[in-house]
């Protein structure tokens, strides 16, 4: 029982990180109907920015600055590389985002070098005892940060002028235009959000073990998360991220006892297995709109 709960908390912690990444994918998708494959580069870029900034400003301020920095970079990339492509087939734009990802990662790799870079977080791998459970502090920090950010995001979309404008543009672009919403601004904002969220996710990925040139692969776990949750649902992105995190953690804890024939490291592929299972039952994801099925 104790082991199960500990595994659950680890899953929720990691799942929070996937959820932040997934939110970025979904926000960009809703605004532009394109899945941006540039997310891994923003994630790793954020972590690396923190690893440098933290020495100067301390960890927390570094995380905020890195999120703003990556958001600004993402906004700039949207303006220069994506906006001129408006009207091209979605497939073409998605490929361009893939190219952006490679370019940004090459640049970021220059700052990583061949070693592991620490992000300077206060948690490391140290444990805290709650109710007899020994859990890593960083998992709790991830959960708390994700809860805070998700709350802020939902408030933004619900109450602010630009939040509403983004929702309107996601539902019906021409109607939004007719109300005087600048769709270009909506595109730019969506990329900035995705960049900032990915940067924070990346920072949390780097807590404990640091980041190296291969850490970006973790961002790909957000893909099964958004498919599970539904491409066009913010709530779905959060749920999908958490589900993927928990399932992965449980498999990691128990698979070697219960199903050793699946081999070692089966946990790594579980996000994709979950995705396939959900797709069989609900092709548009758990919370997605039925129409998205066609995409």
């Amino acid at each position: 029982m104790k082991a199960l709960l500990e595994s659950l908390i680890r899953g929720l912690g990691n799942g929070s990180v996937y959820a932040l990444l997934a939110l970025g994918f979904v926000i960009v998708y809703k605004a532009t109907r394109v899945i941006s494959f540039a997310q891994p580069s923003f994630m790793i870029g954020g972590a690396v920015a923190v690893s440098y900034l933290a020495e100067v400003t301390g960890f927390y301020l570094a995380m905020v600055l890195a999120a703003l920095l990556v958001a600004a970079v993402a906004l700039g990339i949207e303006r220069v590389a994506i906006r001129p492509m408006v009207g091209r087939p979605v497939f073409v734009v998605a490929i361009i985002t893939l190219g952006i990802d490679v370019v940004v990662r090459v640049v970021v790799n220059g700052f990583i070098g061949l070693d592991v870079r620490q992000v300077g977080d206060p948690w490391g791998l140290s444990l805290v005892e709650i109710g007899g459970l020994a859990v890593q502090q960083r998992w709790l920090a991830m959960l708390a940060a994700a809860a805070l950010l998700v709350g802020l995001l939902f408030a933004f979309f619900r109450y602010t002028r630009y939040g509403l404008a983004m929702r309107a543009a996601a539902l019906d672009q021409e109607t939004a235009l007719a109300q005087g919403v600048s769709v270009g601004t909506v595109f730019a904002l969506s990329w900035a959000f995705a960049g900032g969220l990915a940067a924070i996710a990346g920072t949390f990925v780097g807590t404990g073990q640091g980041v190296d040139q291969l850490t970006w692969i973790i961002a790909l776990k957000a893909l099964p998360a958004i498919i599970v949750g539904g491409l066009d649902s913010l709530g779905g992105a959060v749920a999908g991220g958490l589900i993927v995190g928990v399932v992965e953690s449980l498999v990691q804890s128990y698979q070697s006892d219960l199903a050793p024939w699946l081999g070692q490291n089966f946990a790594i592929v579980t996000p994709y297995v979950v995705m396939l299972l959900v797709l069989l039952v609900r092709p548009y994801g758990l919370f997605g709109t039925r129409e998205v099925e066609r995409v």
Partner: protein
Amino acid sequence: MLEVRNLEVVYDDVMLVLRGVSLRVPAGSIVALLGANGAGKTTLLRAISGLLGVHDGEVTKGSVTVDGEPVHHLRPAQIVRRGVSQVMEGRRILGELTVEENLRVGAHTAPRDLAANLDRVYGLFPLLKERRKGIAGYLSGGEQQMLAVGRALMAGPRFLLLDEPSLGLAPALVGQIRDLVVEINAQGTTVLLVEQNATMALSIAAHGYVMETGKVVMDKPAADLLSDEDIREFYLGLGAEGAARSFRAVKHYRRRKRWLS
């Protein structure tokens, strides 16, 4: 004054849809724009409000001016800020948002006047106030049309472009829409009213234009149009070109069905 001069519009680089349209909407008036399906009325409104781009259309000749200043190369957001708002054909309510959220989207360009404009719109449409927390998609067709008009008013426009506001509505509701247009106009908003329902439009307009295949073919004071034999015949469905008309009738029927559902 909203003025369209010798306007040509092309869709997809090849389809010439407006062929030299001119039209004047003096400040403070209601002007009616009539015409059969496919005549180019919606296209003209898109050209004024800057929404042609969404449809791969562009102005290739002529001009649209608001108080003498050309606007036909501005983006929709800039045109809304100049005081021109369009209520699109088919209402185009944001169905997943609440009634009030729809109105707040309409206020995007005028956030400072949000409270005052909200009061004004709720005054015009008490029903919307009652249902302001409700999901807009659950409103009836007539209520959605009111919401679409209210949403456009949230920008505080000086010129309001209405595209077939009575489409698909029961006669009683058509009368209600007509009274509302009159009231909105009396409050100081100039109205360009596109309508299939010629009787309704001409009963409140000062002046009327009739379009046919991309051209203005008639342009008279509303009272004169109302008593014009051709107009009466045409809108009673007794025009000359039988075959073409029956095709249009079919198209019209389909459209009604789509938006009623």
